[in-house]
């Protein structure tokens, strides 16, 4: 099973990817406390979905080809699970 570190790296990789489309004032930090969703979040709805799918692909590449972040459960958990890098990491690890 992928380690928490691997999952964090996968999330950071996705952050690198989406930052290309973010202005300099809206860059997302590669930091466990960085806010991804909700108040203080810097991604619009398209950016968030792109980010989610990026994370999903990267987690799948760690040896979990069936992993999904876009099922009903994940969507229902968005507000808490996607709040920060740290909460997303924990959420993904809990679902592996």
């Amino acid at each position, binding site marked *: 099973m992928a380690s928490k570190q691997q999952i964090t790296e996968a999330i950071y990789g996705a952050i690198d*990817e*989406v930052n*290309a*489309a*973010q*202005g*300099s004032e809206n860059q997302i930090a590669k930091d466990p406390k960085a806010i991804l969703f909700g108040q203080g979040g810097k991604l619009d709805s*398209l*950016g968030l*979905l*792109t980010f989610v*799918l*990026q994370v999903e*692909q990267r987690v799948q590449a760690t040896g979990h080809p069936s992993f999904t972040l*876009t099922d009903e459960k994940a969507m229902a958990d968005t507000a808490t699970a996607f709040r920060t890098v740290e909460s997303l990491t924990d959420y993904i690890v809990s679902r592996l």
Partner: protein
Amino acid sequence: MDIKNIHCLLIADHTIDQLGAILKNGDDAPAIKTSVAPFDQVQQVLMNGALSCWKQGADTAVVWTRPERSIDAFRQILQRERVTQQELLAQVDEFADLITRASERVEALFVPTWTMPAWWRGTGGLELKSRPGAIGAVRALLMMNARLAEKLENNSRVHLLDASRWMAGAGKNATNPKLWLMTKALYSLEVFKDSAADIKAILRGIAGLSKKLVVLDLDDTLWGGIVGENGWEGVALGGHDPIGESFADFQRALKALKNSGIILGIVSKNDEKTALSAIRENPEMVLKDSDFAGWRINWQDKATNIKDLVEELNLGLDSVVFIDDNPAERARVKETLPQITVPEWPADKMLYTQALHALRLFDRPGVTDEDLGRTEMYVAERQRTESKSSSGSMEDWLASLQLKVTYEPLGPGNIKRAAQLFNKTNQMNLTTRRMTEAELLAWGTQPNHAMYAYRVADRFGDYGLTGLASVEVNGGEATVTDFLLSCRVMGRGVEKGMLTTLLDFARKLGAKKTTAKYVETKRNKPCLDYFKDESGMPRNEAATEFWWTHDQDFPTPSHITLVEGDGNTPAPETEAAHA
């Protein structure tokens, strides 16, 4: 087009907002302001220039469509419905007509080629086949893209972009069916990043900012090993080992660049005789000494050598790329000559060719005959320099050149090169205006305007189209609006020949006086010096205005033959043109 203030309208049948964000926020210049046309209304937007999305100041546009959406016959092909090739191509022609119509509203219009997602494979090999009434989808797509390219190839404002390369680069992540279903975004950020980089590279080329000269190191750059230690027989080049083959590949890629009009030069710390014998005698060398416009092979500082070589070639430092395997030399050049582009270079020699191809520095809106013959022109220039040193006086030398200056109106045969010259010339440039091909053509066709392109040739060869000048006549007053000349032909009396043609036009339209007003920039002092010291025109005290009254003839130098051309004049044949 103002490169610092570009506004791009994005027209697509899929969510394209992220391309806009990358065009605006990406690291590479220029930053581009974008707006997005109404989603999935491509045909309406292309057809109707009165729509509000066209009224927001866009000077460029991207039209990115799905093949099954913009060409209904292709959708039918995907559904295995009967479609003839004729029907398919007729729809492509209609789409090309819409693109052509829209291109008249902007200065540059980008059209990515049609692709299918990598995961789509249809029925495999059958997709490349054709039988009556049934065309394989992959075959149809190839035909559609080829037809589109053919229909648009003479439209200088339209730039087709190879989207299949972006797809291949992003691999299986180029498209994500879930992303499409959830957001209607067809492509990944990776694809958008690649496409944005290509668009920006072309825009830099349109603005005349593409690179002209690649300066190369020798040891471990053009061949493996140190020639001074091992002799040319001992360096790795060609043969049957991966390193030697990689250097031969790299040289082939450089030769292709040279053949497309990019100049090559050498700056190397080496013994010149040893290095040149390696180039001339090693049978594995792909590049010959005649492929290089010049070189500095000695033990001096490379930055100094590069500056010296660039001056000799009459180029600007900002048009130069320096490639060297040695990070210390790269750092030194980068620090000393910040205008030069010094790409990071892979330590792994087998990646050199790939690194060269990854540089988006050589994009140009078109390639002219002058581009293709540029290196030969430098060889001819070397011969001129040799003849100069053997002539008795400057007058003797100028007379011996047999200079011929052909002036012609702008037209299809010269507009590409004219626009390049117009937007790149800095030193001998009276007013340093910047205009696109379309703007130049429009300006030059006004009845009271004349805009001439000048081709210069002498007994050593053809310099090509090297000058551009214009005059505007209003009643009895005429104004020289542009006067620019390539450094390659400055100081040979061509300037006076150009002035003669402008003054002649003004006089014929009734001007009593023609004035040239100098607009100072950081780099055009040579132009001021010319008008002050050599033009023979009276001037005001501040030396900002120069004039000629038409009650007297302007003295044309006797060593120049002025010839009127029609805008499609072929390059004169001279001995050096065949050198």
